[in-house]
């Protein structure tokens, strides 16, 4: 579904991603872990189409299309969804109206009929119930005055409504207490299915106790330095990023010597 080849990304002249390769198939859940500044959020944002980043080299193919050639709204309509690390407030615009607009754009794109207000209300109420979200949240302004936990749950609700093919969870666990984390993880698990790929971007291993990934990749200084299955998370928990960093430098040094 998603193939990233030799991706190099700069912001204002500073290189942040330095040749990332990643291959993700439908139905898989991949976790991307790394310390602050390793470039993991940049990777999430580049996939979702934020244009403050300059892609200087490499390519991303999504369902056989050149993803980098698509505008962010086009990507969203093609099924790319990102749950934001910091969901944005839009005062005066109800959650329900916002989501209806987005969903109808996506439906139009796929040649489906748009939902009217009544149909949409029925649809979204079902989704909210499925995720144990109180309907009151639908009538409030988008993320305005929401608690940290409510904001993240709102992201999961949006994911449930927009039904993406590829969902990226950008540090969804940040700022959540353990109860909120469990609720959010539970929501993501319910949205796991064989047609949908999920990328979980996180600093900590703890989220992966609740959402068990198929693969884990460790991103360090703009490169994936290690990939493995869920065991890798435990290894990381034990050793910490510093150890991995040290291992990585020694490998690099050796590599340089052999060259």
């Amino acid at each position: 579904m998603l193939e990233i080849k030799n991706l190099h990304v700069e912001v204002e002249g500073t290189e942040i991603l330095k040749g990332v390769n990643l291959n993700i198939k439908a139905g898989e859940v991949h976790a991307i872990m790394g310390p602050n500044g390793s470039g993991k959020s940049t990777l999430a944002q580049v996939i979702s189409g934020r244009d403050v980043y300059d892609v200087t080299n490499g390519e991303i193919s999504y369902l056989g299309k050149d993803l980098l050639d698509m505008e962010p709204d086009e990507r969203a309509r093609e099924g790319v969804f990102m749950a934001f690390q910091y969901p944005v407030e839009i005062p005066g615009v109800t959650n329900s109206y916002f989501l209806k607009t987005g969903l109808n754009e996506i439906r139009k794109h796929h040649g489906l009929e748009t939902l009217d207000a009544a149909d949409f209300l029925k649809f979204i109420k079902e989704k909210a119930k499925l995720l144990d979200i109180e309907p009151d949240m639908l009538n409030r302004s988008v993320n305005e005055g929401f608690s940290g936990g409510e904001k993240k749950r709102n992201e999961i609700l949006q994911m449930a409504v927009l039904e993406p093919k590829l969902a990226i969870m950008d540090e969804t666990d940040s700022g959540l207490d353990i109860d909120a984390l469990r609720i959010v993880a539970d929501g993501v698990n319910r949205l796991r299915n064989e047609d949908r790929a999920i990328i979980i971007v996180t600093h900590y291993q703890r989220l992966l106790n609740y959402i068990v990934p198929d693969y884990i990749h460790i991103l360090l200084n703009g490169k994936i330095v290690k990939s493995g299955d869920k065991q890798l998370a435990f290894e990381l928990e034990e050793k910490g990023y510093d150890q991995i960093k040290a291992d990585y430098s020694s490998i690099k040094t050796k590599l340089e010597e052999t060259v």
Partner: protein
Amino acid sequence: MGNILERDQQQAEISSEEVEKKIHKAKKKVTEKDTLEALGNREYKWGFFTDIEQEYASPGLNEDVVRFISMKKKEPEWMLEWRLKAFRNWQKMTEPTWVNVEYPPIDYQSQRYYAAPKSKEDGPKSLDEVDPELLRTYEKLGIPLEEQKILSGVAVDAVFDSVSVATTFKEKLAEYGIIFCSMSEAVHNHPDLVKKYLGSIVPYNDNYFAALNSAVFSDGSFVYVPKGVRCPMELSTYFRINSENTGQFERTLIVAEEGAYVSYLEGCTAPKRDTHQLHAAVVELIALDDAQIKYSTVQNWYPGDKDGKGGIYNFVTKRGKCAGVNSKISWTQVETGSAITWKYPSVILQGDNSVGEFYSVALTMNHQQADTGTKMVHLGKNTKSTIVAKGIAGGVSQNSYRGLVKVMKNAENARNFSQCDSLLLGDRCGAHTFPYIEVKNTSSQVEHEATTSKIGEDQIFYCNQRGISTEDAVSIIVNGFAKEVFKELPMEFAVEAQKLLGVSLEGSVG
């Protein structure tokens, strides 16, 4: 290889805060570009010109022109005298300079002060006599004048340059004793009411532009709602400037007798022209005991092109008086047009327990300048006023809120709440707030809140990421910002106002 490694290590030392800063900088650039593209280049769709035979006063302003206008309207002597008095006063006055707008001096002698479509001697008696070209013009503007085509709940007075060309639903309103006609007609048919109220709220020498209007006012609407009558439909006037180098000086007067209620709407458009045109209107509202007047405006005069060429100079005096106890006057305005807007719809709260409200959205793009706000003057006991002003500025426009809350000595327990919010769409525009507060009574309470925010790249990207285009995203965000004011507009106007901002209507569900 060694070089690459070295560079790797060097770059690893750039802290994550520095990267954050760079991201922030990059985001700012993107916002500017996107929002301006989305909003700045809106087409002015109402800019066409109707080619119709017109009758003009020669350019220039002197007593003869005032007499000409009065003669054209076959006015009684008292009306002419009033105009001349105003004109002589105006000559002694000077244009106000305290306004936060800039424009080259206006040459009052190069403007025309009267233009009217040529018609039969006494003007059209019914729609059948109105020039079909004029009917087509209004239809094109979305205001069909044939009664069966109009939204059934709205009666319309259509003013074209200096004259009213048609007023709909007059007979139906007459059944309730409601008078809804053009100002010219009112001078002839209801002279006692006009004499009693015209200039009673905005005197002929009130200010420079009001004096000018009093001297040369052409048409406008007159509304009289008798005691105890609730007007069964929305009344509206649609003002259209058509002729070149011609000013429009309309005058509107609304009187609500004891216990009466009326909701009145006005809309305005003009053709695109390279030269500036003058529009100086006066609106007076009088609410007696327990009466309510709701006055809504969607102002969409031609704003000039993106380089600031052309556009209407909109200098307007609007004032209402809550003369009776428990009366209420509510102003709602959506100001999106005009090169310059100078306008402060005000309420004099004279009756005890009376209520004044002002809800405003002012959008300025490109080179537009707006200096708008309100005055709430509390005279009576337990009087209450609410001010909600939302300014949206983009391009190199300047958007100012200017407001006065004045509580006089006898206004026991007066209350005011003011909220002024500004939204900036870019780095080169300005939002300003000039709140003046004068309180002479210790039992009163005055509150003022103000915020300024910028439309964020984060907000736009968030919408994009949910499948919404940048253009729609800007509209949705601006619409959300202005929502508090839009909900005060009557339904038909709310739709028009939101369309004006390029916004699709937010459904009533959800």
